[in-house]
């Protein structure tokens, strides 16, 4: 691809249980702490599982928690990118549940609300009002892969010249609906310890948060002397078309994504340094993901790790926050570890401690209910 069409990442912003700024988040990611804990309000409300990863130090209107998380993350990202509001911005958002608390309030008959005002559409409308530089938006409700969908849409819009700055991210505030649903789907961890890829893994932990990135063409970033943190090269999408909630047993949809992204970018297996895995900690999802990695990479496996034991599964924000971690791993030449990983079940390389090493190319993976598979590719710049 000619340099003129390459997409630079020039700003990052995050809100999650580990921190509301990039430095605190990254530092916490590399130690052995976790944002997961027990919650009394869930116990009092008769939830079966009461472990979750929630943001504690932000006072929010409960019905606009997703919007307020988004604003906090966007402010960080645009400050780092130092992008001008004279430029033509586009907003690209991924979310699973939107403002879930609003739907809970409607069910509780506490308030009469218009449902669509609290989906991702409503969050985008409010963000467009707050940031007049945003000329248009696209919102994707593609469940736990939504952040990667937003990244792809932002990249496409920049390459077509529709906008000059893409504000791209994902958000999901804590959802009692999701907490109940994953519990009733037997996806939640009874132990309260998320152990992706471990032989003794017993499920996922729900999280909440937002992650946003500023994207622009490399030539735009260079012209305005912005600091290029990494390059977003590509995104591959597929659908299992197999089951509403379970991954396809042969992992063929994930394998298609890996192969598509490697072939389209003329990459050898050995050129991938790290896979930022979906790694939820559930039996089936981790098995499917590990199987795909083993089949695609054979003996030339990159490191594979999941940050979900640290911040839980943040649903629509997950692949956006993990995209931020992908960029940071390139910036810091450090691969985060998979907390709680002790017993191997699969033949994949999972670091138990952070690894200082060359990180040039990272694959950021997100899979979702509905059979969605998504992988983005990030590379170092120069």
């Amino acid at each position, binding site marked *: 691809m000619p340099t003129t069409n390459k997409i630079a990442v020039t700003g990052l912003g995050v809100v999650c249980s580990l921190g509301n700024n990039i430095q605190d988040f990254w530092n916490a990611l590399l130690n052995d702490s976790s944002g997961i804990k027990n919650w009394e309000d869930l116990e009092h*409300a*008769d*939830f*079966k599982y009461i472990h979750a990863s929630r943001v504690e130090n932000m006072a929010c209107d409960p019905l606009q928690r997703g919007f307020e998380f988004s604003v906090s993350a966007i402010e960080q990202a645009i400050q780092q990118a130092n992008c001008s509001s004279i430029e033509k911005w586009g907003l690209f958002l991924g*979310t*699973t*549940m*939107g403002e*879930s608390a609003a*739907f*809970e309030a*409607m*069910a*509780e008959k506490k308030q009469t609300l218009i*449902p*669509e005002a*609290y*989906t*991702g*559409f409503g969050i*985008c409308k409010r963000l467009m009002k707050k940031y007049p530089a945003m000329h248009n938006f*696209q*919102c*994707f*409700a*593609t*469940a736990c892969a939504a952040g990667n*969908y937003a990244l792809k*849409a932002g990249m*496409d819009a920049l390459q*077509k010249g529709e906008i000059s700055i893409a504000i791209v991210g994902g958000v999901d505030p804590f959802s*009692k*609906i*999701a*907490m*109940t*649903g*994953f*519990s*009733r*789907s037997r996806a939640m961890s009874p132990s309260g310890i998320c152990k992706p890829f471990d032989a003794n893994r017993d499920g996922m932990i729900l999280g909440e948060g937002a992650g946003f990135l500023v994207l622009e063409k490399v030539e735009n970033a260079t012209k305005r002397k912005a600091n290029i943190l990494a390059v977003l090269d590509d995104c591959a*999408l*597929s*659908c*299992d*078309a*197999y*089951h*509403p*909630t379970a991954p396809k047993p042969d992992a063929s*949809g994930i394998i*298609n994504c890996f192969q*598509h992204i490697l072939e*389209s970018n003329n990459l050898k297996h050995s050129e991938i340094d790290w896979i930022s895995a979906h790694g939820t900690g559930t039996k089936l999802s981790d098995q499917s993901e590990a199987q795909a990695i083993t089949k695609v990479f054979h003996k030339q496996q990159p490191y594979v790790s999941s940050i979900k034991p640290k911040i839980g599964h943040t649903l629509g924000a997950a692949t956006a926050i993990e995209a931020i971690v992908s960029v940071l791993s390139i910036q810091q030449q450090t691969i985060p570890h998979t907390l709680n990983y002790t017993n191997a079940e699969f033949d994949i390389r999972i670091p138990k401690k952070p690894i200082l090493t060359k990180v040039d190319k990272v694959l950021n993976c997100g899979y*979702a*209910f*509905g*059979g*969605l598979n998504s992988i983005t590719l990030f590379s170092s710049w120069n």
Partner: protein
Amino acid sequence: MELNWNTYQATGKTEADLAADFVDAIGGKQDFEFFGNQSAVYFISSNSGTFSSIAFWENALEHSPRFANPGIFPWTLANATSGYIARKFSITGPNYTIVDNTVDEAQLVSSFKTDALKYALKNAICVHWELKVENHQLSVHARWCILLA
């Protein structure tokens, strides 16, 4: 590229019912076929999943979160219907659920053309899906069309 929309309206008890009825109705038409990885789904809705979200939480409040009906949960996700369409037509290419109350046709065609090049798509199904509660019944007002590469 001109989009030749078909219209569809139905009522049902749940979003799951509406999705099943829709696929049955359009599946009866024999003038199109899909091609696995070379077909895509573009599903646009401002409120897909919201009525199931409310229904699921009502159910959890009635029976306790421990005993809420797990069958409702997948339908709380806005992409449940697009996933259902993909399964019924074995469409394994890109599957989008776009949250909007209108269809930007130029944007839709532009996205399809980009994906058609990238994934060698032959066609895609586009569905605009808006739910309403009318006379205490859930109804859908939908439009759909087939995009050809």
